[in-house]
Each structure stands twice: as structure tokens, then as C-alpha cells.
């Protein structure tokens, strides 16, 4: 029996590792944003390197899983869905890495009184991503629990929308020059995009879950 499941268990471990990389990567994103806003340059650089490592690990794991799923013709009736799911969840960590990298390159000047708003926004995005990872894990192991996690993804995505809207209003009512306002809004949009990416994957996952349960 162990022989029968040997190859499968190795692939299961790789899928778990991919999801761990995405989960840890998004947590690192949140820490990185906090470091930047608190002007802790050394820790910010460490987290920038860490998120790049997680993103690269997630990419190579995803490719390996996809190749094995096809080469060993596993789960023929769900393979397309699983591949779509893995590729799209990979976009979440890609987005997190890209945003943190933009902070490093463009160095936006965030006024101290807006720091808490940026932190809240990034936390909402990361919460959405964390619940998405839980939803994807449930898709593989406990299909009945998927809706519980998906509805939390939607909740945090809406929360991120609300926080982003509040932040943009604060930015544009400040007495600073327009270029500065647009630059801050640009970063607000980027941080907000993380939750949008999570929502896109959750939408797909909801359909895949229905397909598996009928």
C-alpha cells in the first residue's frame, strides 16, 4: 500500500511546500511594508531578499508539480483545474514581491500620519492571501471546508477596498503637491492589488469546488 502512495505522497508534499512558500512570502511582504514605513532599512532589505527567495521557490515548485501532474497523468478529470489554481495562486506572491520591490526602487515618501493606513491596508491584503492559502489546502484535503475560507477571502478583499478608498481620500485632501499625491495613490493601488489577486483565485476556486462536489 505504501508503494502505491509513494509517488503521490511526494507530490502532496510539494504542493504543501508551494502553499507554505506563498503563505510565508505574503507574511514577509507585510513585515517588509512595516519595515519600510518605520524606516528600518536593514530589516527591509532582508525581507526584500526573503520574498524574492520565496517567489522563486514557488515558481520552481509550481513548474515541477505541473510537469509531474502531466507526466504521470494524475487526476485527469481535475488536472486542468488544479493547474489553473496553482498558476493563479502563484500570481499572489508575484504581486507581493513586485510591490515590495517597487517600494525599494521608487522610495515613496509616506507621511507619518498615513503609516497606520498603509499598514492596515497591507494587513487586509495579507489576511485575504492567508485565507486563500487555507482554502486551497482545503480544496486538496477537505473540500467541505473550502467555502468557510473563501468567504473570509471575500471579506478581507472588501475590507481592503474600503481601507484603500479611505487612504486615497486622505491623500487627496492633504496639502501636498499633485505629483506626491499621485505617487502615494500609486502605492496604495499596488498594496490593494494583493487582495484583488486573492479574490480572483477565490472566484476560480469556488467554481472548481462546485465541480468537484456535484
Amino acid at each position, binding site marked *: 500500500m505504501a508503494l*502505491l*502512495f509513494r509517488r*503521490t505522497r511526494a*507530490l*502532496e508534499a510539494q*504542493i504543501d511546500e508551494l502553499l507554505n512558500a506563498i503563505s510565508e512570502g505574503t507574511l514577509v511582504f507585510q513585515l517588509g511594508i512595516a519595515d519600510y514605513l518605520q524606516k528600518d532599512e536593514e530589516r527591509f532589505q532582508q525581507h526584500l531578499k526573503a520574498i524574492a527567495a520565496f517567489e522563486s521557490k514557488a515558481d520552481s515548485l509550481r513548474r515541477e508539480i505541473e510537469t509531474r501532474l502531466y507526466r504521470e*497523468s*494524475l*487526476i*485527469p*478529470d*481535475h488536472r486542468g483545474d*488544479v493547474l489553473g489554481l496553482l498558476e493563479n495562486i502563484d500570481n499572489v506572491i508575484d504581486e507581493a514581491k513586485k510591490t515590495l520591490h517597487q517600494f525599494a526602487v521608487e522610495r515613496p515618501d509616506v507621511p507619518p500620519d498615513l503609516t497606520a493606513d498603509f499598514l492596515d491596508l497591507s494587513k487586509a491584503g495579507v489576511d485575504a492571501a492567508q485565507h486563500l492559502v487555507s482554502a486551497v489546502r482545503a*480544496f*486538496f*484535503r*477537505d*473540500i*467541505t471546508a473550502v467555502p468557510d475560507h473563501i468567504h473570509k477571502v471575500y471579506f478581507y478583499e472588501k475590507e481592503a477596498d474600503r481601507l484603500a478608498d479611505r487612504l486615497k481620500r486622505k491623500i487627496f485632501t492633504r496639502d501636498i503637491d499633485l505629483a506626491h499625491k499621485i505617487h502615494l495613490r500609486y502605492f496604495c493601488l499596488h498594496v490593494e492589488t494583493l487582495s484583488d489577486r486573492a479574490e480572483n483565485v477565490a472566484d476560480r476556486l469556488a467554481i472548481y469546488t462546485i465541480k468537484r*462536489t*456535484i
Partner: protein
Amino acid sequence: MTWVFLLSGIFLGWSLGANDGANIFGTAVGTRMVRFRTAAWVAAAFVVIGAVAGAHGTTKTLGRLGAIDAPAGAFVVALAAGLAVVLFLARNSLPVSISQSIVGAIVGWNLFTGRPTDLVTLTTLLSSWVASPALSGAVAALLFVAARAAIPRLKIHLLEVDVWMRTGLIAVGAFAAFSLGQNAIANVMGVFVRVSPFPEAVRLGPFRATSVEMLFFLGGLAIAAGIVTYSERIMRRLGSGLTSLSPLGALIVVFAASTSLFLFGSAALQDFLVAHALPGWPLVPVSGSQAVVGAILGISLVRRSGIRYRLLVNIAIGWVAAPLAALIFTVVGLFVFQNVFQLPVKGAPRVVGTSLPASR
């Protein structure tokens, strides 16, 4: 000469293997859950075991319907039953079956030779045609409901479910092949039992084979040859086009259909039930294709995915058309053999291999 006459039975076995082999592993191969080569050899091995191990019950029922006692008569009956399905009806995509055409062919022989047709046996056969798809439909519906409720609660990883499903498809396929061999060998070789060209008994080392067992072994090999050589195309068509079943659905359909074939074919089970004062049922060759259609309809009912009534109508048409066509072919064939080739199609019985256990 009898050996030549046996060719029609071998042809019948081959065509049955090609068609019913596809029923056993069609969805598994079509959905690429199981490789064709694995499916074909597992099915071939178990169909032979089923044919030899426990096949006397259904043969005895057909024997009661008509005791064909001339090799040429048996040849025509088997050929007509095969031709009715292969040449005439299957082309119109009707789920017709050799199990049904052989009944028409035997009744045709009775009519032509003036032998009486046992109406009780005929009624039993006809009612089993309805009972078999109904039974497999009920089994499939119950299993589907149970599986749908149980599998999510087991919290097995999607990839492990896949492994279980593949293993299950092969195991259930083996059971289905055994049941098919046991149930359908009567169609293929039943009419030759009284005219078997094999010696009464042969001893091969520790094994002892009777004439009927050797005949059934040959029939089993013919079915196996049909599965290995010709069922692949039908399997791929079944899996990818005809039905939109998931691997779980396929597993349940094959299991339900083979349960029906097994129950209507297992003399051992019948003996067990009778010995324990439990109600038995007639051992009758039933159609694998119709049992599969019954199971699919059972699942459709539970899923409320809509029933294709056309399928039901086609089955009912098959119940009438297959035996009728075989009956006409038999009467024409017997007339030709008797009057053109001057061969006896009934007559002096050579009673070999009829020593079926009296209890069955």
C-alpha cells in the same frame, strides 16, 4: 466437422468480448485513468476464469429453453444471434445484446424443428431483461448517494483519491470481467453443450477438465481475444463521448452493472442462498450493455441531471428487435442448411457434457 461449427460460437465470443469489454473498462480507459493494455489483460484473464469457474447456471437456463442437439443447428443459432447484433442492430446504435438475440435464435430453432418452447423459462428470461437494468440502476443510485456523502467526510487528499480510484477501477473491472465471463459464456457456448467435440474428461497433471469446462475455456478465450484485439476503439469512444461520467461515477456504474451480471449468473451464490433457506432468483444471461445503461440512469436520477428517455426507449426496442431479428435469421439459416447443404439441424443427440450437477 463439429469443430468447424464451433467457429460461430468463437465468433460470437469474440464480438461479445469486443463490445462488453468496452463496458467493463470503457470509462476508465477513455478518461485515461487506466491504460488500455492493463485493462485488456486484466479483463481477459478474469473473463476466462469467470467462464470456466462458475458458469453452469445460465447455460442450464438456456438449455431448458431449447436443447439444440445437432452441430449444424447450434452453428446456425450462434451465428444468427451474433449477426443480429453485429451486422443489423448495433449499426443503428441500439444497446442490443447477444443475451437477448440468443433467446430469439433458440426460439427460432424450436419453431423450425417443431420442438416445444418452455414458456416458464421464456417468461423468466424476459422478466430478467427488465430486472437486470432496474437492479443495476438501484444499486448505482444507492452507491452514488453513499459515496457522495462519505468521500468528503473521509478527508482524503485529492491525489490519494485518484490512486484509490485507479485501483478501484481495476479491481471492479476484474470483478466485472469475472461476472461477464460467468454470465455470458452461456450465450457463446451454451448451444454447443450437447454437441461438444471435446472428450468427456481430460486429466492434465493435477487438473481434471470436463467436456463442458473445455468448451467454456475455449469460449472464454474467444471473449478474451475480442477484448484484447478489438475493444480499444469502443472503450475510447465510450469514455470520451457517450457518457460524461467522472471516474467515481464510472467506478459505481461498472460495479453496479457487474453486481447485476454476477447475481444473475452465479450458481455458487444461488446454491448458498438455497442451502440457507433464502430466496433465490433465476440464473439468466443478461445484457452487460443494458445493465450499464440502467446504472447510468440510476445515477442520473439521483443527480437530477435529467433522464434521456431515448435511452430507455432504445433499450425497449432492443428487447423486441434483437430476438426477433435473430429468430428470423435462425429460421432462414436453418432452412438453408437443411435444404441446400442437406445437413441435419436437429436429431440424434450425442449426449456429451450434459452432466451438469443436478442441483443447479
